[in-house]
């Protein structure tokens, strides 16, 4: 899953939607510079988590449609296909330590969610 791509610290921020457009505990998928990014909010928090929408187990772009929650306090999403869990903060698969998926930085500017896309390891 890791592919050597140049990594830049300097992120380019892309505005995708308003915070309200992401319902608490329900993911959405955004198209960011050609990449599929799954965005989640937990509870009433405004913090937005961004991970790749690609589920490496089913090889489908579906993670935004998974159920979110926590495992012992770690925020995570379960793939809707085969139910593997991924940590929303790190992208690590909690059920298979050999697997992890890319994450993306986010920030909220004037109520709009922005995704930083240069800090990308690889999409697939």
């Amino acid at each position, binding site marked *: 899953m890791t592919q050597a791509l140049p990594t830049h610290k300097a992120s380019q921020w892309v505005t995708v939607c308003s915070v309200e457009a992401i319902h*608490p505990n329900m993911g959405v998928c955004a198209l960011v510079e050609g990449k599929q990014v799954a965005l989640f909010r937990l509870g009433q928090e405004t913090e937005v988590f961004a991970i790749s929408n690609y589920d490496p187990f089913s090889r489908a772009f579906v993670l935004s449609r998974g159920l979110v929650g926590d495992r012992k306090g770690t925020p995570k999403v379960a793939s809707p296909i085969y139910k593997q869990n991924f940590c929303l903060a790190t992208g690590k698969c909690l059920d298979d330590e050999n697997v992890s998926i890319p994450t993306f930085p986010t920030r909220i500017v004037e109520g709009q969610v922005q995704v930083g896309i240069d800090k990308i390891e690889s999409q697939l």
Partner: protein
Amino acid sequence: MGFTENDMAAKKNLIVIGNGMVGHKFLELMIAQKATEHWNLVTFCEEPRVAYDRVNLSGFFSGKTAADLSLVEPGLYQEHGIHILIGDKAVRIDRMKKLVHSSNGGSVPYDKIILATGSYPFVPPIQGKDAQGTFVYRTIEDLEEMAQYAKQSKVGVVVGGGLLGLECAKALQSMGLETHVVEFAPRLMPMQLDDAGGQILRAKIEALGVSVHTSKSTTEIVSKEGKVSKMLFADGSELATDMIVFSAGIRPRDELARACRLEVGERGGMVIDEYCQTSDPDIYAIGECALYNKRIYGLVAPGYTMAAVAADNLCAPQTSKFMGADMSTKLKLLGVDVASFGDAFAQTPGSKEIAITDAVQGIYKKLVLNGSGNRLLGGMLVGDASDYGNLLQLVQNDIALPPHPEDLLLPPREGKPAAGMGVENLPDNAQICSCNNVSKGQICRAIQENSFTDIATVKKCTKAGTGCGGCVPLVTDLLKAEMKKAGLEVKNHLCEHFAYARQELYALVRTYRIMTFDDLLHQHGHGLGCEICKPAVASILASAWNEYVLEPVHAGLQDTNDAFLANIQKDGTYSVIPRIPGGEITPEKLIVLGEVARDFGLYTKITGGQRIDLLGARVDQLPYIWERLVDAGFESGHAYGKALRTVKSCVGNTWCRFGVQDSTALAIELEMRYRGLRAPHKLKSAVSGCTRECAEAQSKDFGVIATEKGWNLYVCGNGGIKPQHGVLLAEDIDKETLIKCIDRFLMFYIRTANRLERTATWLNKLEGGIDFLKQVVLDDCLGICTELEQEMEYQVSTYGCEWKATIEDPEKLQRFRHFINSSQPDPNLMHVEERGQKRPAYEHEKSVLGRSS
């Protein structure tokens, strides 16, 4: 041969002759031990392809390709520098010069040789055996020839009713031939089964349409115009046939060994010692070409063991020994379970047998006990081999039997656990997970040392249960037993967020009239919830209050199927199944389905529940599809929910000359009554119009069969992973009583079942079993029937079509798009066309089609 001088100097040459299952296993084990650093590995492979799964060869006729059967990961040999000589055959071993000569005229020097030459099919010396139309069953090439010849044949005979012969019969049958099995012995599988077991197997196989002829000695094969036409037997009878396949046993391939004067057995096979070395210590033999202790092991598992022993000893001499192997086997032959283990033929002096023969169900089970009747020595199982694992454990671990060993043969009664075979009785060295070779002791130690309390971590840590998964129930039992020992309460908690079982949460929701997940979580749970508790609580709330599942407070709880009111498929598209109550549909509606499927490019298939499945709908297409369907009068079919699915029916007495009641009308009425009802798991139903039971009501959660006097109600039947027949709850009742009974039964199940527990499992665990259920539903022994009926009445009166509600709500429709910031659909979906319809592209096809992201 492609080696450099340096290679040759630094490493020794190891030649593996034969690239069958065992030869390949040996190479895999050498790779795993990193032995390629010290050895140049060369393997001869006389067949035109690398090792494949010979055990499942008949799969070739049920659609598997040679590639599917292959055991070798593409590129594996190349990656590890193994030289494979495909289509080249080792023809002579020169032990003086230490050279192997090959069929293409070359020669390879060796330091060590592994003979993994396997066996060849034995063809009895019958007159006419070489006529056109006779075959053997060993290689993919054999199969291809058979398949070619079968095209011009109607009848096929297998000579040999053993394990391989029956596999071969399956192959002939799947080629559409009228299939016969001819066996010399008086019964089928004479090496594994006794007469009684052979009888039951024969009856089962004949019921599948294969003719069995035992005690038949073939004297001549008669040909007509050079082609097989019939077989003559010693008893004067004959059998007309177009083709014959010999499967009368195997003989070791030992011609190389004979020619270079290695020691071979009287009836063939290279003699090996416990290190798998032949009479020449530089030459090893493994698999069914090897003779250990005067015995040929014709199964793959002992061959694999030999491969491991040889690999170990080449890496570190005399570190591991082959001590013979257990020939216990469990197989599915033509769909019939057959198992034979330990001293199956009671050859131990003084041993005793217990057997049951159930000719009705086609089950034979025999146990062989020691003289004092307190230890199991072996046994055989036909028709139902589900106890094989447990029984084999009892034999291998010399475990004391319960006072009534005959109970081991009987299925557990409803509501009672199986007799005397708890996992706690196993010794520490008992192998629990055979895929990963994990013992009970290893699992228990891991649980104790790490204080594990959930099955997922036990699996992750020990690897037990991560292969085929068959031992997971045993591992779960071990975990529970260990937790109990540690003084931990074995809790039936839903998950880490709720310290309650599903039934308790259901009671809390009802008692305190809790309407939302958040309220339940704040009052009775903690954390944020997860993919276990959210859908479970969503289901409880729906069963209790029946609010629209996509209300903002509920939407985030729903599994993706419920969240998008459709069934997610492996590529992330969805399937659409509108309700077709009772399976009855007007031509006009059928045309609408066809038009919708055509206009949206959906793959169309008839379901098992008398409905029509439209697959491949993108999330953004769902509302448009449903707009058309709702317009035409369709409703959600709830195929996505843990809810009532269908009530199947036969046409009943309106058309059928045998029907005694109108089963279709009743099925429609029941389906309309219970549509949308959410439950701990999905619910299926059916109504049959007469005792012929064409609607298969006895395999449903609740099933109804018409009688002359009224209706019979069966409950807790199940197809699926562990089929179970429904049990009769009430007889000859009228429709009003029937509906009352079903109302009460369903609501009682919803109240008391575990999460994702089907009615069949629920009943098996229900204390008191069907008798207690009858008392609750028919005699109201708990005094809750009025309540149950009212709860159901509430469900029925508050039903609404979820799809209709969804397409009428613009805000809800916002969610039916792939991207929040683009109207583009998922660009990564790829389809190919097959049989005139689309299907998702497989990975290898995707790379050809080109991935766009």
